[in-house]
């Protein structure tokens, strides 16, 4: 299971692309250039290639979420759990934002959103 959660922050001294590239670097044993290329490609797919050089403190909540999502997606796990999106995406209408992002990537597996019960009306179409 891959998690996108407020409890799993980005590495603060690394850029968005480096945070994502860590996974192919350590798990896939790719070299730094190839890992960076994979990470950048994922950010491009999500429509946020521009945030690649930004570090965590310089990102907006939505940009931070996109980086965390890309980091979770590059793990290639069968389940992706988005934990309390409201705590991470307080600057955008978030069910729609997540829907847009999900439509952009060719991800396999199940996406689950775990949110507070009182936010349920936000998900009704």
């Amino acid at each position, binding site marked *: 299971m891959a*998690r996108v959660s407020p409890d*799993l*922050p980005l*590495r603060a001294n690394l850029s968005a692309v480096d945070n994502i590239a*860590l996974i192919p*670097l*350590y798990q896939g044993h790719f070299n*730094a250039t190839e890992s960076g290329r994979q990470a950048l490609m994922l950010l491009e797919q999500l429509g946020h290639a521009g945030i690649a050089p930004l570090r965590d403190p310089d990102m907006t909540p939505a940009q931070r979420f996109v980086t965390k999502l890309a*980091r979770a997606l590059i*793990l290639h796990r069968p389940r992706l759990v988005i934990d309390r999106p409201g705590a991470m995406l307080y600057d955008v209408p978030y069910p729609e934002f997540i829907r847009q992002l999900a439509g952009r990537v060719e991800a396999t597996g199940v996406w689950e959103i775990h949110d507070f019960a009182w936010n349920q009306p936000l998900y009704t179409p």
Partner: protein
Amino acid sequence: MNFLTASIESLGAKLTGWFSVGYSLFAFLAKAGLLLMHPGTWNRATFDVVIKQVYFTSVQILHVFLGYSLVISWLIVSIILSTARDFGLSEFATEMTIRVLVLELLPFLTALFIALRSGSAINTEVALMQVNNELDALDHCKVPPMQFEFMPRLIGGVISVITLAGLAGLVALLVAYFSIYGISHAGFEPFTLTISKVFDFVIVAGLLAKCVLFGLAVTLIPVVAGLETPKKFFMVPVSVLRGMMRVFFAIIAIEVVSLALKYI
């Protein structure tokens, strides 16, 4: 009676605390050592981080450090030469310079320099990572923090102390030569003869071991102190304070033991 009980309790708590700190340091070192010998550790990613650490710890500060070594060496060499001349012991000036500067003072000052510059930064960074849950996030992504964050810092610290102390020693030897013999190659033979007399195998091995211990002290202690930080932001300065005090005492202890082994 209450006072006595309280004193014994306080002493016991302190001893337990010291034991627990010592245990966590050695346990961490053992874990890092075992991982170091594991062939899977030496992948491209870890190697890249080690290179970065060596760059940040030693290459980035090289010009400042060499300037500082030059000034210190020139001062100490001048003091040794003038004192030796006053007492009619000029023929021992070279050996004294090597023993005081190259073997003792410069490695000690190098360790202090790296402790103040990199040790404090490592302690703060690890404490912030601990408080921010960044280590848990790395674990979740199956990026081992030991390989990615800690071990490269330990290796970088050891390599940096050894190379910087070596370079500072070289600068000191050059300063000593030019101060004693001036710009002439007439003194080259007696000077190199004295160097070869001082630097026998035991002395070189001892110097190397001392630099390795200094390198470990200025990186291992801050990492472990950072990892001990409770998950509260206001505890970060306390963690750095504790870590740096331990580093200071460790550096002094290593130097005292090294002097005692050599001269007593």
